[in-house]
C-alpha cells in the first residue's frame, strides 16, 4: 500500500495566457483610443477656456434650470399617471366605443412629435383666447410652463396607459379566477392581487418612460421655458462658448445615469422574492 510521504512545495500561479492581438482587438483599441481623444479633447477645451466670471454668472442659472427640468418632469409624470388610469381601463373595456376612443387618443399622441403637440397647445390655443377667457382658463394657458406640462402630461399619459394595459393583461387569468373562487370581491382582488403583480412587470417600462421624459423635456426650451436646455441656450447665445452645451450634456448624462442605476436597485429590491 502506497501513501504520500512528500508534500509538493507551493507552486507559483500558472503564467497568464497572453491574449493574441487580433483584428477585433486592434479595432476595439482604436475605438477606445478615439473615445479617449474625443472626450479628453473636450475636457481639455473646457479646462483651457475655463472662466470664473462665466461660472459665477451662469452656474446658478444652470442650477435653477435643473430645478425647472426636474419639476417639469415630476409634475408631468404624475399628471400623466393620473390620466393614464382611466385611459388604460377604457382601452381594456368591453365597450367598443370606449376602447375605440382610448385607442384613437393613444394613437394620436404616440404618432405625432411631442414638439408639434407643444406648439399646437402653446401657440395654437392662443387663437382661442376669447373662448378660454370666458371659461376662465386663460390664466393657465398663457404661461409657457403650464402649456408644456399640459402637453407633456397628455403625451406621457398615452404611453403610460399602454404600459399599464400591457402590465395588467400580463397577469395570468388564473390569478383573477383564484380570487373569485376564494370569494374576494373585485375591488380588493384588483388592488391586492392584480396590481402588485402588474406593477412589477410595469416597473422597467415606467423607468424608461421617466428617462425618455427627462430627455424630451429639453424641447420646452424652444417655447421659452428656462429649463436646463433653455439656460444652456441662453448662456450660448450670450457667450458663443461651445462648452455651455457640454455642461448641459454632463448634467443630462448624470441625471439619466442616476435614474437608470436607481431603477436597477429598485428592481433588484422589489423582485427579490422572485429570484431562485
Amino acid at each position, binding site marked *: 500500500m502506497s501513501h504520500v510521504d512528500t508534500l509538493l512545495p507551493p507552486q507559483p500561479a500558472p503564467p497568464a495566457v497572453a491574449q493574441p492581438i487580433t483584428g477585433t482587438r486592434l479595432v476595439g483599441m482604436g475605438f477606445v483610443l478615439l473615445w479617449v481623444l474625443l472626450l479628453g479633447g473636450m475636457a481639455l477645451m473646457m479646462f483651457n477656456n475655463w472662466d470664473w466670471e462665466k461660472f459665477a454668472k451662469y452656474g446658478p442659472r444652470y442650477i435653477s434650470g435643473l430645478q425647472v427640468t426636474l419639476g417639469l418632469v415630476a409634475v408631468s409624470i404624475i399628471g400623466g399617471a393620473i390620466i393614464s388610469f382611466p385611459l388604460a381601463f377604457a382601452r381594456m373595456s368591453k365597450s367598443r366605443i370606449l376602447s375605440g376612443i382610448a385607442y384613437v387618443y393613444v394613437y394620436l399622441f404616440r404618432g405625432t412629435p411631442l414638439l408639434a403637440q407643444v406648439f399646437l397647445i402653446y401657440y395654437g390655443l392662443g*387663437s382661442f383666447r376669447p373662448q378660454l377667457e370666458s371659461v376662465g382658463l386663460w390664466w393657465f394657458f398663457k404661461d409657457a410652463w403650464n402649456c408644456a406640462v399640459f402637453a407633456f402630461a397628455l403625451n406621457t399619459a398615452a404611453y403610460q396607459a399602454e404600459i399599464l394595459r400591457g402590465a395588467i393583461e400580463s397577469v395570468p387569468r388564473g390569478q383573477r379566477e383564484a380570487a373569485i373562487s376564494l370569494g374576494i370581491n373585485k375591488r380588493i382582488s384588483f388592488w391586492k392581487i392584480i396590481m402588485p403583480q402588474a406593477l412589477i412587470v410595469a416597473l422597467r417600462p415606467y423607468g424608461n418612460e421617466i428617462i425618455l421624459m427627462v430627455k424630451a423635456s429639453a424641447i420646452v426650451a424652444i417655447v421659452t421655458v428656462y429649463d436646463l*436646455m433653455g439656460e444652456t441656450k441662453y448662456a450660448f447665445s450670450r457667450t458663443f462658448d461651445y462648452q455651455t*452645451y457640454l455642461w448641459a450634456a454632463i448634467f*443630462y448624462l448624470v441625471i439619466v445615469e442616476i435614474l437608470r442605476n436607481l431603477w436597477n436597485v429598485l428592481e433588484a429590491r422589489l423582485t427579490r422574492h422572485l429570484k431562485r
Partner: protein
Amino acid sequence: MNDLLPMIGHVIDPFCGPVGVFTLLAGKGLLSCGDTGWGDEIASGVFVTASLAIVTLPVGLALGFLVALGKRSEDSYARMAANIYTTIFRGLPELLTLFIVYYGLQILIQTGLSALGYDGRIEINAFFAGMIALSVVFSAYCSEVLLSAFQAIPRGQYEAGAALGIRSGKTMVLVIIPQLIRIALPGLGNLWMSLLKDTALVSVVGLSDILRETGVAAKSTKEPFLFYGIACLLFLILAIISSVFFSRIEVWARRSEAAR
C-alpha cells in the same frame, strides 16, 4: 425626356398635383398651392421630413449593426467602446445631441480649415447635421435591438455554419442576418417611428421640414391652431403609411413560417 420626368412628378404629386389633396380640398384658401397659399410650402416640408428620415435609416442601421457587433464581441476593448457609445447617445436628449453635432462639426471644420490657412465663416448644412445627429441616436437604440436579436439566435446556427465549412463572414451574411432581420423587425419598426418624430427637432436648426414650414405659415397668417394641427396630421399620416408598410414587411419576412 428632360421635361417628362418633372411632368410625371407633378401629375402624381399627392399634394399639389391635379389630384392632390390641397388642390382638391383647399380651393383658393390658405392651403392652396402657388403664391397665394401655403400648400406647396407645406408639401415641400413633407418631402424634406420624409427624405431626412429615409436617408438617416441606412446610416443608422449600419452604425447600429457595427455597435451591436462591438457589444457582443469577445474583446473587452471593443465592448467598452460600444458601451460608451450607447451610454452617451441614449442618455443625451436628442435636441442636445443635435446642437452638439451642429455646432461641434462647425467648430471642427473651422479649426481644420484655419489650420490649412482658410479663415472664412463656415455654416454647415442643417440637413447634414440633422442626418448625423439622428443616425447617431438611431444607431445607439438600434444596437440594443440588434443585440437582443443576436441573443435570440442559438449558438448551433454558428456551429452548423462552421460544420458546413462556411467562413465566419459568410455565415454572418447567409445564416445569421436573415434570421436577425426577422427577429429585430418589430423593434426596428418602433425605432423608425421615433426617428420619424425626431426629425421634427431638426426644424430648430433651420431645416425647412413640416414643422418649420407650418410654423412660418402660422406666424404670417396668425392661424397657429390650423397650421400646427395640419403638421400633426401630416406626421400622423406618415406614421400610418409606415406602419402599413412595416406590417407588410413583417408578413414578407415571416412567409416561410406561415406555411406550417
